[in-house]
């Protein structure tokens, strides 16, 4: 026998405790569902496939102060030296390192300037024909650069005529999916997309277009340059250890810095996300624990306050199970109210987060899942106190005055 109506009436008449609990459940639901969703979103982000064999790749920066050598030639020699090191698969000089959080981006036009036309933003890498192999990515369409596509120059007017783009970029520029072979423009300078890579992330994973990447066959030797190196599996640590010495042995009027593994580079770039993730997890655990304790405590308090009432109910014919059910129903009602409020608050909060922090839209299954979890938790938190209430002897009705 469910006695919902009298329970609601009784709750309405002494509502402070119930309302506090209801609010607590609502807040927990609102925060936990959003936090859980953000956690899931960040987890997916942190664990995403970048397209690179990160555990085999590392990079370093070269700062040259010597003026006695031609930089282009020096870098060419460096590349040859590095590619022949034991344990090294391939190496490439580049302007930017993917996943590192620093690099360059620009809008690529569909029409030459100043003709009006759409442009598509992409992070761009400038390197030679070894870049794809160094990054461990493969072409899915078209061809790699030929060695004579690669322009090594200090002349700002000499620009590359071809490029390799990611599928995401090509499809954004050419929604028909026929980007291969098409011309695009940097300013008024044309280039042709000769190859397409399915998956390859740019310098910024948190960019709004992390998958828009273009590689130009272009080396403009600068005094500050990056080198990416891919090693045989398991060889990276050993290669990294001696790389500075090898580089300085080849030419010593320079400084080698930032020798860093690609996965470590990514980890540092994502450090704030990882921290946020952990804090959100702690927040969830604390909130859920507090709510559970709140329910537990409130029910225990209710029971001690209502000892005589429980005894009287027993005297009037309530079975133990009726007493347990009373508290379960009472709590479920409070919980239902809290969940109703909490789910509404969760959705509103999700909308605010969406607008203010441009987080993705809260998925309803996170609200539903959280509500279910909170409900189960409330039931668990009430079951022990309720069983204790059922043990109250009916003789309390005559004994306690």
């Amino acid at each position, binding site marked *: *026998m469910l*006695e919902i109506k*009298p329970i609601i*009436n*009784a*709750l309405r*008449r*002494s509502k402070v405790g119930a309302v506090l609990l209801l609010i607590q459940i609502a807040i927990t639901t609102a925060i936990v569902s959003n936090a859980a969703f953000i956690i899931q979103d960040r987890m997916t982000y942190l664990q995403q496939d970048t397209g690179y064999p990160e555990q085999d790749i590392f990079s370093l920066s070269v700062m040259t102060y010597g003026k006695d050598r031609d930089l282009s030639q020096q870098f060419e020699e460096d590349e040859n030296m590095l590619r022949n090191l034991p344990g090294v698969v391939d190496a490439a000089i580049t302007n930017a390192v993917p996943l590192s959080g620093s690099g360059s981006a620009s809008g690529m036009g569909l029409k030459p300037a100043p003709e009006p036309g759409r442009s598509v933003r992409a992070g761009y890498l400038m390197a030679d024909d070894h870049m794809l192999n160094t990054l461990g990515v493969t072409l899915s369409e078209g061809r790699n650069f030929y060695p004579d596509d690669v322009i090594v120059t200090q002349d700002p007017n000499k620009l590359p005529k071809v490029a390799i783009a990611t599928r995401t970029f090509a499809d954004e520029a050419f929604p028909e999916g026929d980007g291969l072979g098409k011309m695009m423009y940097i300013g008024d300078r044309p280039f042709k997309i000769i190859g397409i890579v399915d998956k390859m992330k740019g310098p910024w994973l948190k960019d709004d277009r992390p998958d828009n990447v273009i590689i130009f066959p272009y080396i403009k030797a600068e005094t500050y340059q990056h080198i990416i190196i891919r090693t045989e599996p398991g060889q990276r640590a050993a290669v990294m250890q001696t790389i500075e010495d090898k580089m300085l042995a080849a030419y010593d009027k320079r400084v080698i810095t930032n020798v860093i593994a690609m996965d470590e580079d990514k980890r540092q770039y994502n450090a704030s996300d990882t921290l946020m993730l952990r804090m959100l997890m702690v927040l969830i655990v604390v909130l859920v624990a507090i709510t559970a304790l709140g329910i537990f405590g409130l029910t225990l308090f209710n029971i001690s306050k209502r000892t*005589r*009432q429980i005894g*009287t*109910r*027993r*005297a*009037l*014919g*309530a*079975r*133990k*199970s*009726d007493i347990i059910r009373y508290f379960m129903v009472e709590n479920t009602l409070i919980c239902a109210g809290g969940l109703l409020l909490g789910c509404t608050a969760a959705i509103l909060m999700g909308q605010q987060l969406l607008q203010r922090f441009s987080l993705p839209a809260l998925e309803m299954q996170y609200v539903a899942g959280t509500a279910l979890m909170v409900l189960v938790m409330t039931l668990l938190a009430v079951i022990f106190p309720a069983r204790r209430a059922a043990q109250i*002897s*009916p*003789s309390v*009705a*005559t*004994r306690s*005055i």
Partner: protein
Amino acid sequence: MLTMKNVSKVYQTEMVQTHALRDFDLEVKEGEFIAVTGPSGSGKTTFLNIAGMLEPFSSGQYMLDDVNVGALSDNQRADLRNQKIGFIFQGFNLIPDLNLYENVEVPLRYRGIKAAERKKRIEACLEQVGLASRAKHLPQQLSGGQQQRVAIARALAGEPRFLLADEPTGNLDSLMARQVMELLEQINRDGATIVMVTHDPELARRAPRNIQIVDGQVADLTLYQGVARQTDRAVVGG
């Protein structure tokens, strides 16, 4: 209707054993109105609790309408309380968060009676105790006498054949006490068997049968006057 043979009740606390009832014998017949008196601590409430199946007894036999109470499960006792017994307490024991209507409804809900039937009975019982117009009031808005009348309405709602009252007038002034007594007499005339514990010799005298409990046993006194004197002395002494 009620037969107790050699019923004993021992309370075991850390320090002491209290023999609240010892070899208690009593027979109550259908339709009787019995006033139970006796010194404080003599076991009156214990007797009432055992009679009402609110607590178990230690030994002996208790038959209620040919049912051996000692052999019942907790659920069976709860159901039997609900069907056969109406309780009236010294402290009224109304549920403070429920209005009068809902208070009277409590035992009917445990019985699983349908809403329409409940309504009929509740209204009739509140009418009988003269509080029909107050059905929506909360207990704390009533005087003690009115509260006790609601409690009586609640006890009557399930149409029990057996009414147990533990000092029902103990918290009431004499005028209200007399009203409650009159109500009980009316209920008895309507057919219910009543056992009432009281400290009030005047009320006890009004009951057709008196029992005195002394030291956990029915005092073997046949003379009504003697019972009354004993009671008075015991009250003074206890």
